[in-house]
């Protein structure tokens, strides 16, 4: 088994209360299924969409957002999968894809290569 990080980018969650609730229920069902199949190493955390950017030797501090709304990382999950192909396959169930968002699938580097 290898480890992968899913980074959730962008995604408009819809405007109506009902839509937002439906979206949440989809996420919870998706996480549950991943967990039951033994793919969740760490469910991860949501990230605030604001913050600070500290940059360069000057250590200049600027305010977020750091990217276009559609590219902002809103959270991450640590996933276990056989290989990249399987991790990608798993990511296709993510509800963020229904709302114009994206999942970035990144293999975690291994210590003993």
């Amino acid at each position: 088994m290898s480890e992968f990080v899913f980074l959730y980018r962008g995604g408009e969650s819809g405007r109506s209360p009902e839509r937002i609730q439906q979206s949440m229920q989809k996420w919870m069902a998706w996480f549950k299924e991943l967990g039951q199949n033994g793919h969740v190493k760490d469910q991860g955390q949501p990230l605030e969409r604001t913050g600070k950017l500290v940059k360069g030797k000057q250590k200049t501090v600027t305010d977020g957002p750091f990217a276009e709304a559609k590219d902002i990382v809103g959270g991450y999950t640590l996933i276990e999968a056989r290989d990249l192909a399987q991790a990608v396959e798993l990511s296709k169930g993510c509800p963020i894809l229904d709302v114009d968002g994206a999942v970035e699938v990144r293999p975690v580097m291994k210590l003993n290569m």
Partner: protein
Amino acid sequence: MEPTDHLFRRESGRMVATLTRIFGIHNLALAEDVVQDAFCRALEVWKFHGVPENPSAWLMATAKNRALDVLRRERTARTFAPELGRMLDSEWTLAPAVEELFGAPAIHDGQLRMMFSCCHPRLPEEAQVALMLHILCGFSVDEVAGAFVSSHAAIEKRISRAKKVMAGSKRLFDVSGQGDLSVRLPAVQRALYLLFNEGYHGASPESAVRAELCREAMRLTALLLDHSPAATPATRALSALMCFHAARLPARVDAAGDLRPLFEQDRSRWDVRVIAEGQRQLDLSATGPELTEYHVEAAIAWVHTAAHGVEDTNWGMIVSLYDQLMAIHPSPVVALNRAIATAQREGPQRGLEEIRKIAHSDRLASYPFYHAALGEFEFRSGRHEVARQHFLTALTFVRNPMERRFIEQRIGACKVGSPVG
């Protein structure tokens, strides 16, 4: 833990009403943004950490914190609710004032104020109902359009116009003043009645949507019942009426998803607890001199629930109650229902006579159940071909697949039956 069905929708009404009371009615859009924000936050946090123990309290607390941020950030740039006056100016009074406005009694009060504000006298009834559904029940424009089988554009226009009228009223309706309240109460009752009716008889093809409208109308009516100046005999009668009808909802659609008219319902599926609550409210409504259409309609519904079936229903009493209703609130639909009750008691021929006597029956021309009633009486009189023609006309006016199947079954029965006519 799974959030309960429509939790966000329901909380939305409570949150928007509470925030509007703080921000002022002219800042309704700001209140809606803050609520939107709280929901998005809940989505992000709950999907990772699960739904909290008390999701309503979580959402309210989030809305409160956002409200404090907004008030601190914008108190010099914006004016907020005039009735809060200088309370918001200093940090010493701001936090306790907001804390109090997010307490349970104030949240209840806020919803009442919003309900009365939605029934602004300058708004037509359909706009009042749409506004209530949108603001207090958290239905999006699309969902309101779906419930009323109307277009998105039409509903959006109706709601945004209504919001403008409401925002122009400067402050939320004050429900503590008995005088003002009793003047506007009939409009509120009427809007709730229409909302419930849209759920019970409405055109939406989704029976789940319609049941939800009935539940929402009952939830808002319960807010009136909890506020003693608004819990008048008419409000109690309205509540009784809703209970008696809601009790029948489980039997109205059978296992195959087909519409079951009252005459054919499996009465063991009626909800006895809801009927009992209706009876309690009906008893409480019988005080004071006022006899409203809600009293009479509740009494009619009660007579039905008191019978075991069509045979032992007291049709004589129902006909005379319809006579009363015609005196208080005449309408072609009431007259049609009266004709149907008459036919039950005195036979289909009398039913046909009564239907022919209906004043302004042209207003029923596109109502499918007008033609269906004509078809039914002709059918029972043995004139199957005439009946079939009426049912075919009814078919051109059906509003959803369930009504279509119902009418088609009646047309089918005309073929199977004897070829008289």
